């Protein structure tokens, strides 16, 4: 069971990587197709949810204790579920201003964690309880947990930027939303 879930997270990470590459190419070319900007924020939310559920599975079911650097990455990833989820629901193209800095911080911690995994001398020692250098999972010979997290963060950054072109809700949807919003809060355009 654990081996299957580990492999599944590896496969989904490759999917996220492919999505990030496609998104990056689109951003560099400067022409974001409407369908892609429509799905960008829901996809980013799905990646954050998958990463969150995956990390909880690894610690609570598989029994891999999260190390200090794992916690910093969790601190960055978990709020993105809420931030991106609400933005995807409200089709808020401005969410990149919040999501990108959080994901960028998470990416830095992932990069340092991967470096310690690859070069144990950087850390120099192993905490017997929760060592950061230990590779609990290594799918396809390269995808460790921090590397999966890092790819997730990068995909979220790219998709948040692609989602800048998300069309704002139509007036009719505005009316529907406003009816359910007694405070009449404004939505960024």
């Amino acid at each position, binding site marked *: 069971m654990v081996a*299957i879930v580990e*492999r*599944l997270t590896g496969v989904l990470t490759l999917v996220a990587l492919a999505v990030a590459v496609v998104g990056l190419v689109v951003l560099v070319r400067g022409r974001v197709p409407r369908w892609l900007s429509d799905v960008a924020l829901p996809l980013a939310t799905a990646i954050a949810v998958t990463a969150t559920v995956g990390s909880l599975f690894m610690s609570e079911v598989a*029994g891999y204790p999260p190390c200090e650097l794992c916690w910093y990455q969790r601190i960055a990833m978990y709020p993105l579920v809420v931030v991106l989820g609400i933005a995807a629901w409200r089709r808020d193209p401005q969410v990149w201003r919040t999501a990108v800095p959080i994901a960028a911080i998470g990416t830095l911690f992932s990069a340092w964690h991967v470096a310690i995994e690859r070069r*144990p001398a950087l*850390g120099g020692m192993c905490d017997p309880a929760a*060592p950061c*250098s230990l590779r609990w999972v290594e799918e396809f010979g390269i995808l460790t947990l921090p590397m999966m997290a890092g790819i997730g963060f990068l995909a979220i950054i790219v998709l948040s930027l692609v989602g800048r072109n998300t069309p704002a809700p139509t007036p009719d949807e505005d009316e529907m939303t406003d009816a359910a919003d007694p405070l009449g809060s404004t939505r960024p355009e």
Partner: protein
Amino acid sequence: MGSTSRPSTAPKGRPNPRAEAKRAAERRQRIVMVAAGIGVLLIAIVIAVLSAGESGSALSTSDVARDVQVRGDALPVLEGDPAADPAVGDAAPVVRGEDFDGTPVEIGAPGRAQLVTFMASWCPACQQELPEVTAWIEDGRLPAEVDLIAVATSLDAGRPNWPPQDWFEEVGFPGPVLVDDTRSTVASTYGLPATPYWVAIDADGRIVARNAGMIPMAQLDALAQTLAAG
């Protein structure tokens, strides 16, 4: 993006055909999105189920662990600067146990100077250091007056690179290996904070130095020469 300020073209209460058509198109798009997402997830699950394989040794932690007997007071956990280690000069606890094959191994007893290295097979830093130490010994840099003993500790069958005896054999470590018990009694008795962990004990059974983490081989040379000089 300025469409939010545009008034609706249809009076309230009446159906707006354009808005209805747009909503229907968006509903279709959402259905396609969800279906595509479910499709990707299903394909990923199928790949995972077909390609994942359970691996691991049949040996449990208790199969590998050995009983140990401790005589003497435990050392405090090494914290901060090793140069200010309060355990230096203290009598080393005497630990009697076994190698993987049942051969008796003892550390801390007076008689000969000892370099004791605590290694965890799952620890990447240990995985890097044990071959370096093995090469150091094979190069003849261990003085004849000093014994080098490894302690296989923090045993955990759920972690990578299990079982540890296979690892020691693959590396070709020549010295004796004292195998810790399931509660890592030897490690806690010697105040281990992290692996790899080194303890230098002189011929009188007194602690000369302790060090947590990888150490350069030049430093190991100096430590060994200090022990050899008495």
